[in-house]
C-alpha cells in the first residue's frame, strides 16, 4: 500500500527544489562516487552558500556521509574510493590532481561522528592545527588562538583552569566541543560535521546545536544528521539523499512542512528510514 506512494528510485532523474544558489561557497556538479565497482553517489549537484548551514538527511547508507567526505577529500584515505564530477571551492577545483590537500583541509575543516580528541592536553589539542600550519609565531599568539577557539566552542569557561590536562578526560559533549574548537582554531571557511551529536546525550546535543547556530555567523557549515529534529532546528536548507541520489533540496521549513517530493515526505513522516 505504502509502496504505491513512494516513487521508484530509478525514476529520480533530477533534484527537485533549490539545489543551486547564487552566492555559492562550494559548488558541486554531477558528482559520482565509486567504492571499487559499487557506485555510492549518482550525479549529485549541489551548492553550499556562504555562511549557510545546510543539513543532509536520509536513511542509512544513502551516501550523505560519503558526499560530505568528498568536500575536503577525506575520501582520499580510502584507496578504492573514486570521485568524478566538478567540485569547486570558490571557483577552485578541489579534485585537481595538482591541488595539495593540506591547505584544502585547512580551509574545509571537519568534525566527526565520535568525539576524537588527540590523547594530549586540551591546550595541545586546540594548538595542534595552528602549530602544523605555522599560524602562531609566538607563544602569546598561540595562547590567544587557543582561548578564542575554546571561547567560540563554548568550552573556555569549563576548561580554562585545566588546559594542560588530557583532553580525553572530558565528558563526551565537552570532547565534541573540544573537537570543534580544534577545527575552528585553524580558521577554516567551511566546517563539515558528520553526525556530530550521534554519540551525545540530549543536553550535550542542545549545546552543540546552539553552538552551530552561533558559528554560522562566521562559517559555512554542512552537517550530516540522522535526527530530523536537529536538521529542522539548526539548518537553513535541507538536502534529502536517497540511495545515493539527491532527491530534494529546499528551505528547511519547507522540507519539513510541505516537501516537494513524495520520497522526502515519506521519510520525514517516518514511513521508512
Amino acid at each position: 500500500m505504502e509502496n504505491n506512494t513512494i516513487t521508484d528510485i530509478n525514476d529520480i532523474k533530477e533534484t527537485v527544489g533549490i539545489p543551486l544558489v547564487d552566492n555559492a561557497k562550494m559548488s558541486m556538479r554531477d558528482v559520482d562516487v565509486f567504492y571499487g565497482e559499487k557506485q555510492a553517489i549518482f550525479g549529485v549537484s549541489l551548492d553550499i552558500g556562504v555562511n549557510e548551514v545546510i543539513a543532509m538527511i536520509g536513511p542509512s547508507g544513502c551516501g550523505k556521509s560519503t558526499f560530505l567526505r568528498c568536500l575536503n577529500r577525506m575520501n582520499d584515505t580510502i584507496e578504492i574510493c573514486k570521485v568524478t564530477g566538478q567540485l569547486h571551492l570558490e571557483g577552485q577545483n578541489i579534485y585537481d590532481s595538482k591541488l595539495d590537500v593540506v591547505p584544502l583541509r585547512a580551509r574545509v575543516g571537519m568534525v566527526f561522528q565520535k568525539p576524537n580528541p588527540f590523547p594530549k592536553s586540551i591546550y595541545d589539542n586546540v594548538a595542534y592545527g595552528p602549530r602544523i600550519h605555522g599560524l602562531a609565531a609566538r607563544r602569546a599568539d598561540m595562547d590567544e588562538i587557543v582561548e578564542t577557539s575554546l571561547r567560540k566552542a563554548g568550552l573556555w569557561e569549563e576548561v580554562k583552569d585545566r588546559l594542560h590536562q588530557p583532553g580525553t578526560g572530558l565528558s563526551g559533549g565537552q570532547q565534541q566541543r573540544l573537537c570543534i574548537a580544534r577545527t575552528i582554531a585553524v580558521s577554516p571557511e567551511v566546517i563539515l560535521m558528520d553526525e556530530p551529536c550521534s554519540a551525545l546525550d540530549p543536553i550535550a546535543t542542545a549545546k552543540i546545536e546552539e553552538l552551530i547556530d552561533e558559528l554560522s555567523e562566521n562559517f559555512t557549515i554542512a552537517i550530516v544528521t540522522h535526527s530530523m529534529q536537529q536538521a529542522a532546528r539548526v539548518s537553513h536548507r535541507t538536502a534529502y539523499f536517497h540511495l545515493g541520489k539527491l532527491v530534494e533540496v529546499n528551505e528547511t521549513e519547507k522540507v519539513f512542512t510541505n516537501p516537494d517530493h513524495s520520497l522526502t515526505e515519506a521519510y520525514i513522516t517516518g514511513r521508512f528510514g
Partner: protein
Amino acid sequence: MTDKNINTIDLVNKNLKKRYRAEKRFQAYGILSICFGLMCLVFLFTDIISKGTRGFFYHYLPIEIHLDAEVLGITDTNDVHQILGADYTTLVKKRVYEIFEAKKRKEKKNARTLIAIDATGYRIQDLLKTNAASLLGTTITIDALVDDKVDFYLKRLGEKGEPGKEYFNEAQLLLIGKLLERQEGGFNKSLNKTFFTSGDSAQSEEAGILSAFMGSLYLLLVTFCLSFPIGIATAVYLEEYAPKNKWTDLIEININNLAAVPSIIFGLLGLAIFLSFFGFPRSTPLVGGFVLTLMTLPTIIISSRAAIKAVPPSIREAAYGIGASKMQVTIHHVIPLAMPGMLTGTIIGLAQALGESAPLLMIGMAAFIPDVPTAITDPSTVLPMQIFQWFRNADAGFSEKASAAILVLILFLVMMNALAVWARSRLERRW
C-alpha cells in the same frame, strides 16, 4: 499450561547443577595449569639460585707473607717489566710450605695443591703494580685463594656423603681439618670479586664473568641500534605508506616466515656474508649484532605493525581533518601511540637475542676470551656461550661458575625488562 511451565523450570534447574559443575571444572583446569607452571618456575629458580649463589662466594685463607725482593728478583721498583715478570710463584709456594709445615717432597706437594698458588701470586702482583716501592720488603696479610677443589669441598661440608672428599688424600684432609679447627686465621668465605671483575680463565678460581657480560652488552647495543630503527621504519612504511598489492603481500609473508627460521641459519648467513664476503672481524659483537639484528627484525616488525594497526583510525582522521600531512600524522600521532607496543616487541626480540647462542657459534663467538672487550670490534664471547663452556668443563669449580653465570644472565634480563617497563610507563604518562 501451568504444568508445562513447572516442567520447564525443573529442567532448567536440573541443568543448572550440571552447568555449575562444568563451570567449576573449567576453572579448575586453569588453576591446575597455573599451579603446574608456578611449580616448574619455583623448582627451576630454587635450583638455580641455590647453586648459583655458591658461585658468587669463595674461600680464602689469610696468610702473612714477607715480600722479599730477593726471592721475587726485583732490583728496581720503577721497572714495570721486573714487577710483571717477578717470580711470585716461588714466593707464595715457600710461604705455603711454611704454613703447612711441609718439608718432604710429598708433604710439599700435598700443601701446594690446597692453595691456588698462581692466582694468589697475581694478587700480589696487582698490589705491587701500584706501589711497589713502599710494599717491597714489608710483611703483608693477603687473602690467598684456596684451590677450587678445596673450595668445592668446604662449601659442601656437612652435606651427606661429603662430596669433594675424594679429591684429597689422608694427609691433605688432615691439613684442611687443622685449618678448619683454627679460631682465627682459618678459612674465610667472602664475595668472589674476581668473578665480577675479570674475564674467563683456564683456572676456575680466576675465571670471571666480566668479559662475557661486556660481550653481551656490546652485542645487544649493536642489535638494538640496528634493529629498532630499521624495524620501526619498516613497520611504519608497510602499514602507512605501502600500497596493498602482491609485492607487499609477498614481503609480508616473507617477514612472517623469517620469524620462524631456526636461528642457526642466521649464523650460517652471517658466516657466509659478513665474515667471508665482507670480511668483518671474526668473533666480534659487531658481526654478532648484525646476525642477531636479522634474527630480531621479524619480531620487532610484526609487533610494531600490530601496534600501529591498533592506533584508532579516528585519531588519524582527526589529524587529517585539520590538514596534517601523512608524515605529520605518522610522526605526531601514530608512532607515539604505537610506541609502547613497539617497545614491547623490541624487548621480546632483544631478550631472545640475549639468550641466543646457536647463530653466534657460527661466527666464532664461542672462543675462549680471557680479555674484557672494550669495543664492539674486540673479540668477545657472550653469556650463554660462557655458561655452556663452563658447564662442559670437567673441573668442579666451573659448573658452579656456570650456575652463577646463569643468575647473572637472568639478572641482566630482569634489568632489561625493568628498563622497558619504565620507558613504556613514561611514554604512556605523556598521553
